[in-house]
């Protein structure tokens, strides 16, 4: 049955309280691994607190590809007692715990098979001139030693990390890391592994990015020639605005923080009306406020790109945890009908590419485009090859800044797409939220209303014909079981697939327009279909039923805010196979 070998994955779990630098330990280890030739998948879990909550970062490392979370860890770095207590039963056999032996950490309850690596992190930090604040740097040094990582790569990373700080600070950090590194080499000489031993030397090193979906979305927008962004902070997408705010001078676009999400989308619409490629981003709660602007962009045919990062909802919900609960909302938000394009990337590469594409689609179809991602995509880092804009060309669509004789902004064309222009061009038009005639003048006439509705509706049909893409199929063409899913579940599903030869995966990245024919064909051919979603009601399954008439009864639904793990999917596949084999 096993056609492929499961990738060997080495998982490090770092735990501590908020403020202890858990995330930076994880990021440095991930970059260290990436620069040593490994693939990584970082998973971050934290409560909605700035200080005091329990933070966990998982760094999953493989010389093969790793693209999803892992339930068990090989090594735990415990920055506090809570980490030991909460996570010791998640250690693989033969695994170990690095803990701060300066703290009175109680390890007496632990299974005797767990290797314990007590390291006096605070003392080692203090010896090197650091203090409490650099305990996490000492932890990185200790972990690097234990996993056989290259010390020079680590010190280079630290130097780069603090490049804008003075030499004193850089040197102090390096000394602390080195001090902990040598302590582990001396005291645990027999336990040194080669999990992070470089597989690529500096000379053969091909750079890989360690990047999360928020950053990929921001970079995709910049690469797509975005000229204006207004984003109100909200978990889990705030990092998008941080990246955009920091780079605006260098890349000559404007980012502004508005007073709320209503202003965010209306500013973006105003800027787009004036000709700028415009962008905004929010989470579900913020999108509730954007809903009226969403339809304003629809009826005025103003392009705007929106990245929506989903978190556990409704209301404030579980704000720092993930969910895929906004799909039907994005597909149906706003009163009445207008064409909307909804894309659902499943990893950082897809986020980058679909965000770039979203800008071209928004301009081509003169309507809002939503890139819908879940919190796991927003915040989990992955390795990927250095982004490449490849043959991407900025395409503003049917758009003119020149004066056109007898210009009609909403002229009727067979594909529904009229020529767009901007104020200041000499062309007169009203971008009118009232129903309007080709110039934009308000109208309530029956025929004009019907033709305008049909013209706007036509754009989505044109898009389905000219641009929509079918889901990607992973695994064999013909399979006993077909999994259909979307978003960050992709990574875990791909890992699960590694253990089965007769299961394939339909990864849906276009939700509107929807590739109904392809999906209907695939699902009808499959012996058994499992829909995997992180929401309560099976929103993709509902969409599939609406568009194809196919009702999927086997649904793996998860709504506890946690990521779906490969093991959970494997179990569901096995259950289905049992039933199939009995028949």
């Amino acid at each position: 049955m096993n056609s492929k070998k499961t990738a060997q994955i080495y998982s490090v779990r770092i735990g501590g309280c908020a403020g202890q630098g858990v995330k930076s330990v994880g990021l440095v280890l991930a970059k260290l691994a990436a620069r040593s030739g490994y693939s990584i998948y970082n998973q971050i879990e934290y409560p909605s607190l700035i200080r005091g909550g329990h933070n966990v970062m998982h760094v999953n490392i493989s010389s093969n590809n790793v693209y999803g979370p892992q339930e068990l860890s090989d090594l735990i770095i415990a920055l506090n007692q809570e980490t030991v207590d909460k996570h010791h039963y998640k250690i693989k056999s033969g695994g170990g715990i690095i803990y701060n032996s300066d703290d009175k950490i109680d390890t007496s309850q632990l299974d005797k098979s767990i290797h314990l690596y007590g390291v006096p992190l605070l003392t080692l930090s203090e010896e090197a001139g650091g203090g409490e604040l650099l305990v996490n740097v000492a932890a990185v040094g200790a972990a690097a030693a234990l996993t056989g990582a290259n010390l020079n790569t680590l010190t280079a990373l630290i130097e780069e990390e603090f490049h804008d700080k003075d030499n004193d600070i850089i040197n102090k950090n390096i000394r602390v890391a080195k001090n902990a590194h040598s302590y582990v080499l001396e005291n645990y000489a027999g336990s040194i592994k080669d999990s992070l031993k470089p597989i690529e030397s500096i000379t053969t090193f091909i750079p890989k990015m360690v990047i999360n979906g928020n950053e990929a979305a921001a970079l995709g927008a910049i690469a797509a020639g975005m000229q204006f962004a207004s984003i109100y902070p909200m978990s889990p997408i705030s990092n998008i605005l941080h990246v955009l705010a920091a780079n605006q001078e260098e890349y000559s676009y404007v980012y502004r923080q508005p007073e709320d999400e209503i202003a965010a989308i209306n500013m973006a619409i105003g800027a787009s009306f004036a000709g700028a490629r415009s962008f905004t981003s929010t989470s579900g709660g913020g999108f509730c406020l954007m809903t009226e602007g969403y339809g304003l962009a629809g009826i005025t045919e103003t392009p705007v790109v929106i990245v929506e990062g989903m978190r556990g909802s409704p209301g404030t919900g579980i704000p720092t945890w993930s969910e895929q609960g906004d799909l039907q909302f994005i597909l149906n938000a706003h009163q009445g009908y207008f064409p909307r394009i909804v894309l659902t990337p499943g990893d950082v590469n897809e986020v980058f590419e679909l965000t770039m594409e979203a800008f071209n689609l928004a301009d081509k179809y003169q309507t809002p485009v939503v890139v819908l991602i879940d919190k796991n995509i927003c915040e989990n880092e992955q390795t990927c090859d250095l982004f490449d804009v490849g043959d991407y060309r900025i395409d503003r669509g049917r758009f003119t800044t020149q004066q056109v004789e007898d210009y009609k902004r909403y002229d009727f064309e067979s594909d529904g797409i009229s020529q767009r222009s901007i104020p200041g061009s000499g062309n007169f038009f009203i971008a009118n939220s009232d129903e309007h005639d080709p110039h934009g003048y308000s109208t309530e006439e029956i025929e004009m209303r019907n033709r305008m509705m049909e013209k706007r509706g036509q754009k989505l049909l044109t898009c389905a014909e000219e641009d929509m893409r079918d889901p990607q199929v992973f695994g064999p063409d013909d399979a006993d079981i077909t999994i259909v899913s979307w978003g960050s579940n992709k990574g875990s599903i791909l890992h699960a697939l590694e253990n089965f030869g007769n299961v394939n995966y339909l990864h849906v990245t276009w939700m509107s327009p929807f590739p109904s024919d392809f999906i209907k064909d695939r699902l009808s051919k499959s012996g058994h279909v499992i829909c995997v979603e992180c929401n309560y009601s099976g929103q993709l399954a509902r969409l599939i039923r609406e568009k194809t008439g196919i009702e999927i009864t086997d649904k793996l639904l998860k709504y506890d805010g946690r990521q779906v793990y490969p093991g959970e999917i494997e179990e569901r596949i096995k259950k289905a196979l049992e039933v199939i084999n009995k028949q």
Partner: protein
Amino acid sequence: MTSMSDLKTPHPPNWCPGCGNISIWGAFKQAAVNQGWDNTNTALVAGIGCHGHMLNFVKITSLEGLHGRPLPVATGIKLANQKLNVFVFTGDGDCFGEGGNHFIHTCRRNHDLTVIIHDNSLYALTTGQTSPRTPQGLTTKSTPQGNPDEPINPLSLAIISGATFVARAYAGDMEELTDLITKANEHKGLSIIDVLQPCISFNKSLTHDFYRERIYYLGSDYDPTDKDEALARSRELESDRIPLGIFYNSDAVEKGKEPQKALIENEAADRDLDKLFRKYI
């Protein structure tokens, strides 16, 4: 050069005969003719309410948006292309009810926009309900027992929120309003003009007669650069005398709030993306 006929659209105004909107429309067009505002240099934005119909009667490119939201739209336009004269037409319900939050923050941001508030002190398009500007005690369709709440003072709110050009006008004085609109556009910062606009159909209390008995102009000895004095005079509205004119006009406008080049001119082709991508190695 702009002529009156350049501004004419196929749609004559559909406001009630005698409505104050008509003279605001006339004053704006006159200012546009005087100043040469046209489709090469100007953009208009309106909210929803009787005022919003105006965009159909002026042939200058515009965006008629959502109820309460014209200010953020206008801000986006100005940030995208600072060369445009950007005018916002809004009502008292639009600006202080649905859009109250945007009003405060637009004043704080103080971008170079001209905001003309068609202030008829109630909701007219929905046939006469109370607005944030309706005097306390006034009976309307939504307050048959009398409006229980204090009205907003638009000028005081604008001044303390950071707008740098704050004025009041009366729709019945077109000449003065034309002049104010021109001066407001010349001001490099946010300009707010609260125009007292009688709604002859639904507001039987704040009529032309009511205003004519109470209005007077701030004299030539009034110093509009004194913020404290401006704030004090703006509060006269709460008495029985209604001063008109420029209450506050400060040159202390921060330069460079808007990019000096239209964003559309910033081609993405010369963006060094490789440098950006390499930050994530």
